[in-house]
């Protein structure tokens, strides 16, 4: 085990994947000699050469179009989109191409080797265009997998799993935690399961569900709630698509209450999808309305970021209201 921050863990995962398989390539804007604006690809070009780790022109639709072609050829492209806010020029390539490649060809061709990495989320004074959490847009697209890690250990294991998964995978990295989150990370290759949520803490009164950077927010909120005697079960969803209904439903059948939190705006956010499914599965067991603690239905603000943000106080309030309903 070694102590790493999330960037080091991601870099380690990429290094291991590239060492293990010549056909793993890392590319995107500034990922070459510079190692990416966040340095997630540091030293990879030095180690594996310019053919396998390189800068691309500044064209997101091209980066993903190129990656789709490369994956369909049998390679394992790991394409970086510098900020998730800039993934939208590639929306067509992801939604109409990556996601449908296997289905439309009757499995003659696929882009299963494709992994798209993108830093997402707020909390870094990034304003409208360096803060967004776009997972729900992509969650509406069958054929994609969407993975979000919460800490360095998870980031390494889930990224290696994403690269090896035989389906195109979006890997959203909580950039607020890139350096802020540190922890013990096993050395060498290991993979964590995609499509499985993880129960981080068992409890009996309220299930609190989130992913990525919100897990730290949840930890703080739960600490406050438990001081008041509310027993919380904490779940990290980890994979947004296809999501683990069973683990969440099983928990809510036990607790009868569910609080879901994400940074993205409320309307059309993935919490709505979870709430709809869980009320179907757990209707007669629910003790209170399923609560959603999310960003507001505004563009991501700058100066008033703290007000907009679904922080631990808001999550705590939702837990308390749910328990007292």
């Amino acid at each position: 085990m070694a102590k790493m921050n999330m960037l080091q863990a991601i870099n380690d995962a990429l290094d291991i994947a590239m060492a293990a398989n010549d056909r793993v390539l890392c590319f995107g804007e500034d990922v070459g000699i510079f190692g990416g604006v966040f340095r997630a690809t540091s030293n990879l070009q030095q180690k594996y050469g310019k053919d396998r780790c390189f800068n691309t022109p500044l064209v997101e639709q091209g980066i993903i179009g190129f990656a789709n072609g490369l994956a369909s050829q049998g390679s394992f492209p790991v394409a970086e989109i510098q900020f998730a806010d800039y993934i939208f020029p590639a929306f067509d390539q992801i939604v109409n191409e990556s996601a449908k490649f296997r289905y439309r060809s009757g499995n003659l061709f696929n882009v299963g080797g494709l992994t798209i990495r993108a830093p997402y989320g707020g909390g870094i004074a990034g304003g409208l265009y360096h803060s967004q959490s776009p997972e729900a847009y992509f969650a509406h697209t069958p054929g994609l997998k969407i993975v979000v890690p919460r800490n360095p250990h998870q980031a390494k294991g889930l990224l290696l799993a994403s690269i090896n998964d035989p389906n195109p995978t979006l890997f959203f990295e909580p950039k607020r935690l890139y350096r802020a989150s540190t922890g013990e990370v096993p050395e060498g290759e290991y993979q964590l399961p995609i499509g499985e949520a993880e129960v981080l803490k068992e409890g009996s009164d309220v299930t609190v569900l989130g992913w990525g950077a919100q897990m730290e927010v949840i930890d703080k909120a739960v600490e406050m709630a438990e001081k008041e005697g509310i027993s919380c079960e904490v779940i990290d969803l980890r994979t947004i698509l296809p999501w683990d209904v069973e683990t969440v439903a099983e928990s809510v059948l036990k607790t009868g209450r569910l609080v879901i939190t994400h940074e993205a705006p409320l309307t059309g956010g993935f919490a709505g999808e979870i709430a709809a499914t869980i009320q179907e599965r757990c209707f007669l067991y629910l003790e209170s309305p399923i609560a959603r603690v999310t960003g507001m239905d505004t563009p991501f603000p700058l100066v008033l970021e703290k007000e907009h943000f679904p922080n631990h106080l808001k999550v705590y309030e939702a837990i308390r209201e749910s328990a007292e309903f």
Partner: protein
Amino acid sequence: MTTTKSKTVCTPVFTDGAEFRIPTFKLLKQDGSLYKGGKAPDIDKEKALRIYNAMVTTRVLDERMLGAQRQGRLSFYMQCTGEEASIIGSTAALDDADMIMAQYREQGALAYRGFTIDEFMNQLFGNEKDYGKGRQMPVHYGSKKLNYMTISSPLATQIPQATGYAYGQKMAGDGHCTVVYFGEGAASEGDFHAGLNMAAVHRVPAIFICRNNGYAISTPAVEQFAADGIAPRGFGYKMDTIRVDGNDILAVYQATEAARKLAVEENRPVLIEAMTYRLAAHSSSDDPSGYRSKDEEAVWREKDPILRMQNWLTRKKWWSEAEEKELQERLRREVLETMKQAQKLPPPALETLVTDVYDEVPPLLNAQFEKLKAHIRKYPDEYPKSAAHAEGGA
């Protein structure tokens, strides 16, 4: 670090690129003779007849299947009439193991590589033998064994994909290239710019073939771009570029053969603009009489690429009227008979609705599928295509 090497001027000098007029490469006249100074590429009789056979096959298939669409047997069809030389001439200059990423009008490439009438029909009718499992509209062919990427309706998405595919070929060092086809209308998409620029920057063995056929559905090229066609854009990417008479099988072949050499031997991507004309409608849903004249069409009918090749073959004494008659009749018969067979085959199994979304059916989707089967079992008469498949199950 800039790539610009520019001299200094002290008055404001603008340029619109007019000094770079791009010529059109031609070899074959309509009567089958060569232009003065032109030399036919090295094509032997066997290869020439393979090319010609593919052209006629495509034409006959197009005529018959449009007819079938008009009779209501088929939901949709797209012809490539008038563009056979652009497509088949270029495909014939490749190695059969080179990857082809087409737009949707390139059935001639498949015909050349040996896609059978049977295989065309199975896709067109979306029956249980369709490789695409009946999921896509007619003409969205694909063939793994013939290195022909399955067609995707969104335009130009295949262009940056071709760049990526070619990059993989370069990394593998297998000596193959990727050829990507698109129309002059699709070249307005951002993916065109993305794909060509990245190909030039990353030096990939890719050949970009623009079929400039004059129309994007109803929009004429003159309303698509102000420049002198698509070819001048190649300069902007520092890409080897050539414009060729797209109805001239020999010129298309030779241009592509030379392009392939640049691509494979020097990792220099090439842009080919094939000047041609979409003689038929955009698709079975389109009616060109609303936007162009019969006179205009007649001018281009005189330039028919198949007749032009036939004239060349006849001059070389490689082809006769009797052989032409025999080929036409055989193909018509084969198309009709195969169509009847393909129409009779059952549709793909119900489970193909949910397979191949992922490598495995995820639990949530499986639950939806079980629910659907229960529903179909309740209303079997309403779902005649799948009632039999819904038996058993959950």
